[in-house]
């Protein structure tokens, strides 16, 4: 009897790539709806004190500014004064004429200075100014004053870090600009030559890195709580199995390959257990597996289809999809198993539930009269609020700051990703350039 290899160490794929050249993103983010009360801002191009490599320095500065601008614009929380309307181009704080910006109704101003240090190294300083406070007292209006030393190739990472700081300062929530997303791409979907890929990219869609390529389907990627590993279902060798792959090294571990269904992996909040679906007793049921001992605990029983377990943030219970009352609905069960309690009552199809980070609400897939859309429901009552108005949505995944929901949808006959804020005021599209995209998962880092 062939033994199943448990560990496969494949030579490294370094996730955080060294490239900073402006390669085309595989997914591009487009804001289609921002909030009504967006904060009016202006980002003045950072002043570059150039040394020898004039062109490269300017390119670095431009890219830095562009990425910050795009991050904040796509957050839906800001609107930007176009540079043609700038009253001035201050390079330092002492040059800022606050009254002229007040006249343009600008709340916040971003300025910066870039100094070349030679050898592709830069010192980047920026100041975020509250225009109205600063007009009275410049010291009071200085919200952020930061300095960095970076290599030119780290321009994207620095820009995202600055966007995070600005977002946190002005919005009061953690930013997600430095986080990553995973998703599945299918190439040649309409042919018999399909190629499935598991991809990890920056949250803005840039720097896609392929973690797995297969001629058989890949499903249900789920990030570990520390953001360093991905669990997923792979159908390589024509059967379902669950793997855990360490993203930085490519090291892969097979954790479940029972006969039949091995599906819907979901990490416990402490990272020590995996909830999953097995049908080894005849029907798909929810199990938890201790990742160290590999011991299984069966949480649900009965004739129904039970699938899609998701842990509550406090780790005390799980929600899952079950058709025990006829069609798929969301239920909850203690981590120790026992009686399951129904959670959703609105509509005939509710599935793919996932918790908001505060544990108070569920975001899910809701089917109504043949249309499938993303919806949310508080755990305290069964009122459902739909967040999207599409036909063919699936697979919602919530950002680590609890604000945005990343999901799969259809556009122009192609499968693409979309984003909507949990309060439904902000919407984005991520049209794919190649292949069909589905099953997104948002990492904490």
């Amino acid at each position, binding site marked *: 009897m062939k033994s199943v290899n448990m560990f496969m160490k494949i*030579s490294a794929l370094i996730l955080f790539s060294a490239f900073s050249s402006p390669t085309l993103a595989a997914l591009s983010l487009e804001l289609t709806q921002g909030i009504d009360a967006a904060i009016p801002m202006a980002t003045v191009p950072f002043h570059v004190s150039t040394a020898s490599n004039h062109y490269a320095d300017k390119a670095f500065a431009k890219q830095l500014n562009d990425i910050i601008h795009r991050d904040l614009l796509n957050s839906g929380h800001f609107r930007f004064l176009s540079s043609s309307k700038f009253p001035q181009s201050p390079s330092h704080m002492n040059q800022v004429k606050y009254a002229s910006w007040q006249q343009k109704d600008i709340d916040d101003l971003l300025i910066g200075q870039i100094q070349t240090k030679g050898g592709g190294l830069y010192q980047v300083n920026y100041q975020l100014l509250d225009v109205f406070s600063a007009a009275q007292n410049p010291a009071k209006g200085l919200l952020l004053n930061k300095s960095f030393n970076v290599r030119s190739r780290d321009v994207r990472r620095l820009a995202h870090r600055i966007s995070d700081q600005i977002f946190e300062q002005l919005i009061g929530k953690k930013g997600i600009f430095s986080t990553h997303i995973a998703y599945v791409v299918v190439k040649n979907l309409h042919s018999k030559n399909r190629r499935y890929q598991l991809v990890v990219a920056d949250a803005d869609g840039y720097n896609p890195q392929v973690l797995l390529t297969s001629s058989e389907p890949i499903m249900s990627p789920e990030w570990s709580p520390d953001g360093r590993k991905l669990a997923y279902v792979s159908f390589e060798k024509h059967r379902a199995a669950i793997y855990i792959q360490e993203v930085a090294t490519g090291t892969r571990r097979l954790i479940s390959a029972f006969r039949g269904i091995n599906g819907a992996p979901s990490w416990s909040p402490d990272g020590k257990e995996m909830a999953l679906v097995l049908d080894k007793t005849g029907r798909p049921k929810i199990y938890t597996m201790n990742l160290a001992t590999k011991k299984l605990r069966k949480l649900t029983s009965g004739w129904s289809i039970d699938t899609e377990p998701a842990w509550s943030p406090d780790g005390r219970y799980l929600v899952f999809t079950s058709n025990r009352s006829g069609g798929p609905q969301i239920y909850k069960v203690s981590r120790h198993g026992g009686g399951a309690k129904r959670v959703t009552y609105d509509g005939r*199809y509710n599935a793919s539930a996932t918790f908001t980070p505060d544990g108070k609400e569920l975001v899910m897939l809701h089917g109504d009269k043949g249309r499938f859309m993303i919806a949310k429901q508080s755990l305290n009552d069964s009122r459902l609020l739909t967040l999207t108005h599409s036909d063919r949505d699936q697979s919602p995944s919530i950002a680590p700051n609890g604000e945005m929901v990343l999901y799969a949808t259809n556009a122009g006959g192609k499968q693409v990703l979309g984003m909507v804020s949990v309060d439904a005021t902000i919407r984005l599209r991520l049209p794919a350039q190649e292949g069909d995209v589905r099953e997104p998962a948002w990492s904490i880092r």
Partner: protein
Amino acid sequence: MRNFLALIFTVLIFTGCTTTGNDDYASSGYGNDANGGGDRYAAAGQTDDDDVTVGRMQSGDAEEVSPAEFRQLTKYSAGHKCESSRLVAGLEQHYYFNFDRSDVGKADVKSINVEADYLLQHPSKVVRVEGNADDRGSREYNVALGMRRANSVVQMLKQAGIPERQIKIVSYGAEKPAAFGENESAWRCNRRVDLVFPKVG
């Protein structure tokens, strides 16, 4: 008597009585390896399986389908005449199901019996029963729906006396569509079980 035994057998299946088999994947997928781990190391770029590549960066793989090829391939998916199968022993078969149903149609019963006979006469042959579902709704829920259909067919094979070691089972859910389109004729082509006879060895 045979009917009675078949009934008992069916009841046993429904009560979740599992039979042990020699299937590679029947035992715990992650257990105590007798080799104490059996770690296998692969050098950069090498893969375990021709079909799978782990962790290799793909750069600019266009893999475009040429217009002629596309016309040829979309014959397969346009028009939604579901792929039918000639009833030949040992040849890939396709069975289709009604919405929200997993019961096998009468004509398909005949086909399953032909294939069961083939398997009985060729104990070294293996059949892979692949369940599928149309792509509306949750992907993982669709895996379970596809498995329900695959299970129906597997039960019939087992009732005909085929041992589990000759039967592989998998549900692809909606991951391997045979037809595309937001209409009933496309969906029907995807509510499907495929009987596949892989080359063994």
